C-alpha cells in the first residue's frame, strides 16, 4: 500500500458474511414482527367495528331484552332514565368512542344485566374456554396425527381405511350433533352427567374438572382430529415419495425410524398450518359445545349476552375470541420458523 493510499480514510472493513446474514435476519424479524402486530391490531379494530354494528342491527334494545313485553309497563320517565343508562339514542360513533376509550384505559365496561364488570365476567369464563380448547386440541392432535400416520404408513390397508372413515365421520358430522348425541347417550343410557354438578376448576377439583371437560373436548377434538388426519396422511404420502426417504430406506433404517424421524418430521409444516387453522375454528366451536354441555365459558357468556342485548359483554367476549384467533395465527407462524429454517430466511 502506498503512502498516499495509507493517508486516505479507510473504508470500513466489510462485515463477515455471517454477521451480514444475522443482521438481515434481524431486520427481517423486526419487519415481520411489526407487520404481524399491525395486522393483528387491524383485525381486532375491524372485528370491534363489525360486532358493534351487528349487535345494534338486532331487533329490540337492552330494555326489551331485559324486560320483555313488560317494557310496555314503563312510564315515559322510566324509559328516559333507562335510555340514558343504556346509552340508547346516542349517535353510534359516540357510543363506539366511549367503548373504545374504555378499552384503551383497560375498562371493557359494565354488564347492564348482571351489574358486574365485563372484565370480571370474562376473567371467570375465559379459563374454562381455554382449558376446553387446549384439551380439545390435544385430543385432536393425538387422534389426527396417530390415524394420519397409520393411514400413510399402509395406504389402502386397514389402518388407512379406518383412518379415512374416522376423518369422514369427523368432518361430515357437525360438532353440535356429536355433542348432543354424547349427552343423550351418557345421560340416558349410563345416567352419567357430570355437568349436573357445579363446574369445578382445574385446581379445585381436578378429577371432576376432567370429567366435566373430557366429553366436550372429545366433541371438538373429533372434528380437529379429522382435519389433521387428512393433512397428515397427505403430507406424509408426499414426503414418502421424495428421494431422501428412499435413501433412508435403502440404507436399511428401520421403518419406524424412517416414518418418525424422516417422513413425519418433514410433513410437520402442513400439519402445523392445519392445526393453527383448526385451533381458530375450535375457539368458535366452543360457543356451541359450551351451550350443549352447560359449561360456564366464554362461548356461553357470548350467547347469553347477545340474547340479552348486553352489548358490552358481547363485544368484550367477541374481542377476546378475535384476539385468541390472532394470537394463534402468530404462534403458528412462530412455530413455522422454529421447525423450518427456510421460513426464517
Amino acid at each position, binding site marked *: 500500500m502506498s503512502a498516499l493510499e495509507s493517508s486516505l480514510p479507510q473504508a470500513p472493513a466489510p462485515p463477515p458474511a455471517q454477521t451480514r446474514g444475522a443482521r438481515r435476519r434481524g431486520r427481517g424479524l423486526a419487519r415481520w414482527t411489526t407487520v404481524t402486530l399491525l395486522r393483528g391490531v387491524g383485525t381486532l379494530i375491524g372485528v370491534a367495528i363489525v360486532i358493534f354494528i351487528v349487535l345494534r342491527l338486532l331487533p329490540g334494545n337492552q330494555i326489551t331484552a331485559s324486560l320483555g*313485553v313488560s317494557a310496555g309497563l314503563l312510564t315515559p320517565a322510566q324509559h328516559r332514565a333507562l335510555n340514558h343508562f343504556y346509552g340508547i339514542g346516542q349517535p353510534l360513533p359516540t357510543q363506539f368512542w366511549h367503548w373504545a376509550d374504555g378499552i384503551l384505559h383497560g375498562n371493557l365496561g359494565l354488564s347492564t344485566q348482571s351489574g358486574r364488570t365485563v372484565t370480571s365476567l370474562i376473567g*371467570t369464563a375465559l379459563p374454562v374456554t381455554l382449558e376446553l380448547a387446549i384439551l380439545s386440541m390435544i385430543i385432536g392432535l393425538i387422534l389426527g396425527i396417530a390415524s394420519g400416520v397409520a393411514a400413510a404408513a399402509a395406504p389402502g390397508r386397514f389402518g388407512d381405511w379406518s383412518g379415512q372413515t374416522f376423518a369422514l365421520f369427523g368432518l361430515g358430522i357437525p360438532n353440535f350433533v356429536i355433542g348432543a348425541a354424547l*349427552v343423550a347417550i351418557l345421560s340416558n343410557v349410563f345416567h352419567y*352427567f357430570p355437568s349436573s354438578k357445579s363446574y369445578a376448576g382445574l385446581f379445585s377439583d381436578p378429577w371432576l374438572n376432567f370429567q366435566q371437560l373430557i366429553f366436550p373436548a372429545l366433541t371438538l377434538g373429533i372434528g380437529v382430529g379429522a382435519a389433521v388426519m387428512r393433512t397428515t396422511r397427505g403430507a406424509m404420502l408426499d414426503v414418502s415419495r421424495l428421494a431422501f426417504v428412499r435413501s433412508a430406506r435403502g440404507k436399511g433404517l428401520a421403518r419406524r425410524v424412517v416414518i418418525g424421524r424422516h417422513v413425519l418430521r418433514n410433513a410437520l409444516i402442513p400439519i402445523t398450518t392445519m392445526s393453527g387453522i383448526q385451533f381458530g375454528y375450535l375457539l368458535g366451536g366452543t360457543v356451541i359445545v359450551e351451550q350443549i354441555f352447560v359449561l*360456564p365459558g366464554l362461548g356461553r357468556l357470548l350467547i347469553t349476552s347477545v340474547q340479552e342485548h348486553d352489548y358490552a359483554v358481547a363485544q368484550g367476549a367477541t374481542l377476546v375470541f378475535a384476539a385468541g384467533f390472532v394470537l394463534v395465527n402468530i404462534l403458528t407462524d412462530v412455530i413455522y420458523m422454529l421447525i423450518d429454517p427456510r421460513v426464517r430466511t
Partner: protein
Amino acid sequence: MGRRKLCGRIGIAAAVAGASMALAACGGSSSSSSGSASGGGGATGASSGKTVVVADTSSVQKLNPIVMTNFLDFQAIGMIYQQLVTLNQSLQVAPQLATSWHLGDGGKTVTFALRHGVTFDDGSPFTSADVKATMQYIVKPSTGAAAASYLASVKSVSTPSKYTAVFHLSHPDSSLLYGLTSQNMSILPAAAIKANTLATKPDGTGPYEYASYSPNNSFTVKRNPHYWGPAPKISGIEFKTIADEQSIASAMQAGTVQLGLLTQPQVAQQLSSPITVDKALNLNYRALMIQSKGPLANTDARLAIQCAIDRRAVLQAAVLGGGKVVGPVPQGPFATNPNAGTCATQNLAQAKSYLAKAGDPHGFSFTVLTSQELDGTSTAQATTIQNQLSKVGIKMSIDNVAGSQYIQQWLKGKFQAALAENGANPSPYIMYGRYFGAGASLAVPAGYASPTLKSLLARADQSNSQATQSTLYRQFTNYLVNNAVWVWLFNAYDYYATSSSLQGFAPLPSGQLTGLATATVS
C-alpha cells in the same frame, strides 16, 4: 327458549308473586280489607346440613329482585327475599314481613304493622325505613322497574314508628295488596339501596342467604342462621343449569339432582319410582290476543273464531293435555268459570252463524303472530287453531318470528292476532288494568278499548267489599268472553320431579320453591 325462560320474557312480573313461606310459622289469616298473623317463631332447632341440587334449563340472570324477570330468578332469589305480604295456597293475600294491615280514610291509606325481630343477611334490623326506601327505589325512574306500576296509586309512604308503615293512596286500590305480593316488591335493606350493591350481593330476610353465583352455570344459597321463622332443615340449595329437560331427568336418575323443574309433560311422564312428580298449574295463561281492526273489528267475526276453536284440542296439542282450559282469570278468589260464556266448547254451527252475521259467511283471512323461540308450544297451538278455523272457512296465516322481533311487534300492536303467554295474577285488576283500564300502559297490544271495561275495572278496584268486587269482576270477564275480546286458551302445568331423598317438599301455586325451607333431605 323454553317455556320457563319465556315467563321471564313474556310473562309479566305479576305472574310470580311472593310465596307463603312464612305461613307455617304465622298461621295468618286475611281478608280483603285486613290481615293478621302471630309473631315469628324465631330460629329454633337448627337441623343438620345436607344440600339440595335444583336443576332447571334456565340460569339465574339477575340478582336484584326488583328488576328480575326470568322465572328461575324468582324461584332462586325468592329464597332470599321476602315481601310485606304474600299469597297463601288459595292465592289470597297473607302476612309475611307485615303481620297485619288495615285500611283507613275510606281505603285511601293502608297501614302495615311490621314484624319485629327480623334482620337482613347483613345483620341490620328490618324496620319501616327499609319499607319506605324500597318503595322509593322501585318508583325511581332510573331503577327501571316494571313493578312500579303496582304502586301507581301510592302517593307516599310514611313511617310513624319503627314498625309501622303507612301507604297513602290517591284513591282506594284493592289490587295494591296483590301487587305487594310480587317478588318484584321484595323488601330491601335501605343500606344496600344506598350502597348500590343489589345487583351483585343479595341481602334479604328470607330463610336462605346468598352464597355464590357462577353466571350461566349455578347459583347457591345457604341457610340463614338468623332467620326469624323456623330454621330451614336443608343447609344449602344449589340451582344448577342443565341444558335440556331430558338431561335433568337423567341427572335425577343418576342421583345428582334432588329437584328437577320441568315443563315438558313427556319428560315428566317418563320418570318413575323412586322419583315422584308433582304438578302445579302455572299462573301464566295462553291466549289468542286479537287486535280489533280490519275484519277482526267485528265482534261477530271474533266470536266466530272463538266458537271454531276447540281449546281442549289446543291444550292437547301444545302440552299433551298437561294443563287446564281457562277463562280470563285462571286462578284465585276471582277465577273465571271456563265452562261459562259464549262457546265455552267448540261449536262450528254457531261459528258459521256468527260468520253470517258478520257478513262473511264464507270466512275471512287474518294472520297470527307467534314466536316458537319464546314459547316452544306456539307452533303446535297455531297449527291446531289453523286447522280448526279452516273448518268454517277462516284462513289463518302463521307468522312465526324471532323472540326479539315478536316483542317489538307485540309492543307496537303490529299484529292482527298473536299467540301470547301472559302473566296472570289473582287480582283481575293487576292482570287487565294494564290492558283495558283507564290509561292502560299496554292498551296498544291489547287492541281493544271499551268504556264499560274501564268502568268495571275501576269500580272493582276501588271497592273494599270482596262481594262487590266479585260481582264486578264477573261482569268484566263475562264482557271479555261474550265479546271475544281475546280468546283465552289454557294454563299449563309445571312439573316438580323430586328424588326419594327429598321429603316434605310441596310446590306452591305461585311457582315458588320456598317449600324447600321446610323440607328435609336424607
